[in-house]
């Protein structure tokens, strides 16, 4: 019972982080900041949800403990922990080398709007 409630807490936290990730993907002004939201939220929310499933499978398995499944779930968690930052890094490097510029300053405007404003100020 304790393990089941812990698994519910883990899965809910993971879904909460995924909500944050989706909001970040929508609201952030820039490729790099969106990448930040996607990378961090993806890794932690996936690992939390998989941890919730591990706890649920351990708690269920009093009579027929399915350790095969538990070990495979742990493999998924370790694998995501390694690969998600790697693919984030690869995408970031591809974006940087293809010449994407980050938004500068504390402005919430997009790049094009910012340039227009600077030109107007210069005039």
């Amino acid at each position, binding site marked *: 019972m304790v393990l*089941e409630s812990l698994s*519910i807490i883990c*899965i*809910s936290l*993971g*879904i909460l982080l*995924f*909500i944050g*990730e*989706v909001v970040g*993907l*929508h609201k952030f002004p820039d*490729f790099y900041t*969106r*990448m930040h939201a*996607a990378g961090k939220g*993806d890794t932690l929310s*996936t690992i939390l*949800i*998989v941890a919730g*499933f591990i706890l*649920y*499978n351990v708690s269920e398995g009093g009579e027929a403990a*399915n350790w*095969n*499944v538990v070990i*495979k*779930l742990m*493999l*998924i968690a370790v*694998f*995501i922990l390694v*690969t*998600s930052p*790697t*693919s*984030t890094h*690869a*995408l970031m*490097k*591809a*974006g940087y*080398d*293809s*010449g*994407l510029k980050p938004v500068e300053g504390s402005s919430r405007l997009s790049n094009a709007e910012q340039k227009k404003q600077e030109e107007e100020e210069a005039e």
Partner: protein
Amino acid sequence: MEKFFIASGVFLLLLIVPVFYRIIMGPTNIDRLVGINVIGTKTTVLLLFIGTIIQRGEGGHSQIAMFVDFALTYALLNFIGTLVVARYFHKDRDRNSKQQEG
């Protein structure tokens, strides 16, 4: 417990829908790739939800033992796919700059 799994699985599925906005509208190609990467990782999790919910046979065993293999394979394929496409964008730009030099 089963109701909780069904509810959170459906909620996760609904949360994937707004990510499609980034894939369709994304200003650059790499924005789209980020969205595809996010959906791929979440599909791994969604497969685990499906495996826990679906029950078959007389005793009604959950099919997690089968679906966990699918999830593992999907995670591997998603990683390879993202790396390959990121690599492609990298190479594309290198080739262009070499052509401009030569």
